[in-house]
């Protein structure tokens, strides 16, 4: 446990340059500055490592980096997505607070590989403690001569800056994030063109999640194979899981991919006393909910969770015990997407409102017999019909809640009250 992003967690001032370097930090970066690594070598190691995007989409990081036109004669950018806001997700906050230098080194390495001399870390506006931590770490790195122009007399240059959000979940979508960085509303862009061709300020840009960047230095220090071997096939390495909800010890755990859900639940202290597990959302609010039975047989890796009928997402495991009213839980999630839809695509803008209002009327005791069909129809009309993934993210919980816990919705509509809470 805690082998990569969290390896310094228990040490004194884990966020300091001193602690980071005592753990081998910046050794890869210093080798790069001495010319001991080529971009191709780094991409190969990342491909071998099996590292996949930790923000939720799971796209192979090495492959993503290889898409950048590194020889194009123009400014290129590396952007870190620290706009963490998916309900249930709180891992990047701890990386920024406790291991900010790993993000800085990972971004600098990315800059070198993609020949991008400027980077931005987009941090959500509410994360002020992580922001100050990251700013302090940046200052330390600059003072130590690890960033800037022609670093340590080499031909390598990399400048890194922070940018703060101002409260919009949609900015975690990579092209909305770029719009926001440009000082605009966070409306996702059509793809293609992909950011690797036309990104920030119209220039080639690669965007990775905080945890992805933070994993890169160790992968290169110890080898891609070392990282791959920690995990399982198709899911290399370890991963941070935020285990929250009805558990005794909610926390972030960095564990090998492929760990059983049962073991992870135990690490989080198990279900509250006298209660039993009812449902699990394994990857953040956007991923389909699973029944206890299915979850207990599941392994925590991309394929294992997909086989169980959901997605690993950002590794945000939301635990619900038998006191949970599933109608109430879904209504809260529906409110979230209704609130956070950027309004650009009609199916999402109108559909998320419909989903919330219909669920709300069921909660108010005014549900109609055909409301379940109506909810299914609305989510189906959103699914796949929007520019970005927020539409699907709003639809998927609805479909899975209704499929797995249909009787609770029927009961609420018929009796005007919760089957669980009365």
């Amino acid at each position, binding site marked *: 446990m805690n082998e990569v992003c969290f390896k310094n967690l228990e040490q004194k001032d884990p966020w300091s340059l001193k602690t980071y370097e005592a753990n081998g930090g910046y050794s890869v970066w210093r080798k790069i500055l001495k010319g001991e690594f080529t971009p191709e070598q780094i991409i190969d190691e990342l491909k071998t490592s099996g590292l996949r995007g930790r923000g939720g989409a799971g796209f192979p990081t090495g492959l993503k980096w290889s898409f950048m036109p590194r020889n194009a004669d123009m*400014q290129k950018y590396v952007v870190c997505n620290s706009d*963490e*806001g*998916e*309900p*249930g*997700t*709180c891992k*990047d*906050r701890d990386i920024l607070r406790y291991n900010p230098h790993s993000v800085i080194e990972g971004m600098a390495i990315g800059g070198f590989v993609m020949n991008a001399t400027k980077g*931005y870390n987009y941090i*959500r*506006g*509410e*994360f*002020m*403690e992580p922001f100050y931590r990251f700013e302090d770490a940046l200052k330390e790195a600059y003072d130590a001569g690890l960033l800037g122009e022609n670093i340590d007399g080499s031909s390598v240059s990399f400048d890194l*800056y*922070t*940018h*703060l*959000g*101002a*409260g*919009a*979940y949609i900015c975690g979508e990579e092209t909305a994030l770029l719009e*926001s*960085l*440009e*000082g*605009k*509303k*966070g409306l996702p862009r059509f793809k293609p063109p992909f950011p690797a061709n036309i990104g920030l*300020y119209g220039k080639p840009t690669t965007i990775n999640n905080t945890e992805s960047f933070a994993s890169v230095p160790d992968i290169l220090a110890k080898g891609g194979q070392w990282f791959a071997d920690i995990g399982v096939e198709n899911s290399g390495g370890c991963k941070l899981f*935020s*285990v*929250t*909800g*009805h558990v005794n010890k*909610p*926390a*972030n755990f960095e564990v090998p991919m492929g760990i059983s859900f049962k073991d992870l639940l135990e690490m989080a202290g198990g279900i509250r006393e006298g209660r039993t597990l009812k449902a699990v*959302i394994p990857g953040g*609010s956007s991923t389909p909910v699973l029944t206890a039975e299915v979850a207990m047989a599941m392994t925590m890796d991309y394929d294992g969770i997909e086989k169980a009928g959901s997605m690993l997402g950002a590794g*945000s495991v*939301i*635990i*619900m015990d038998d006191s*949970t009213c599933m109608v*109430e*839980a879904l209504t*809260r*999630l529906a409110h*979230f997407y209704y*609130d*956070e839809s*950027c309004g650009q695509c009609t199916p999402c803008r109108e559909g998320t409102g419909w989903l919330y209002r219909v669920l709300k009327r069921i909660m108010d005791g005014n549900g109609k017999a055909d409301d379940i069909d109506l909810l299914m129809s609305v989510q189906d009309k959103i699914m796949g019909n929007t520019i970005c993934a927020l539409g699907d993210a709003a639809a998927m919980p609805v479909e899975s809640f209704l499929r797995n816990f249909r009787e609770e919705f029927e009961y609420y509509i018929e009796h005007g009250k919760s089957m669980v809470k009365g």
Partner: protein
Amino acid sequence: MISNKAKKQIDAWVVKYPEGHQSSAVMEALKLVQAENDNRLTPDTIQAVADYLDMPGIAAAEVATFYENYNHKPVGKHTIRFCHNISCMLNGSDELITYLENKLGVKTGEVTKDGLINVKKVECLGACVGAPMFQIGDQYYENLTADKIDEIVDGLK
């Protein structure tokens, strides 16, 4: 309308972005100007930010109305931003929000008579392992209980 201090702070953001892209600093500029104008934005302050960053007023207004953290109606000196999303809800945030409303004698969205506090329900603040939680200013308060809320809120001046 924008103090010299805020202008200096805005300038420190502007230099992070390439020349000609000073409007990238608009989000922070609006935040700084809001902070020194009763924690809210008005058409005039938004226009002042736009003028300072040499961008169209409508572009600044779009940003000011798109993002959650800008206020357009009167708020208290302190805004308690209470998370009510799934992990917090499962850990009793709704009951604690009601407790806080009763304690202060206001509903969410209202400001206490002395102008000191308003309570706002917000979506996930990304601290789910510390649920239930709220934010006041830059600070997160986690693992809240009624007693803890008393202690924190009674200390607000």
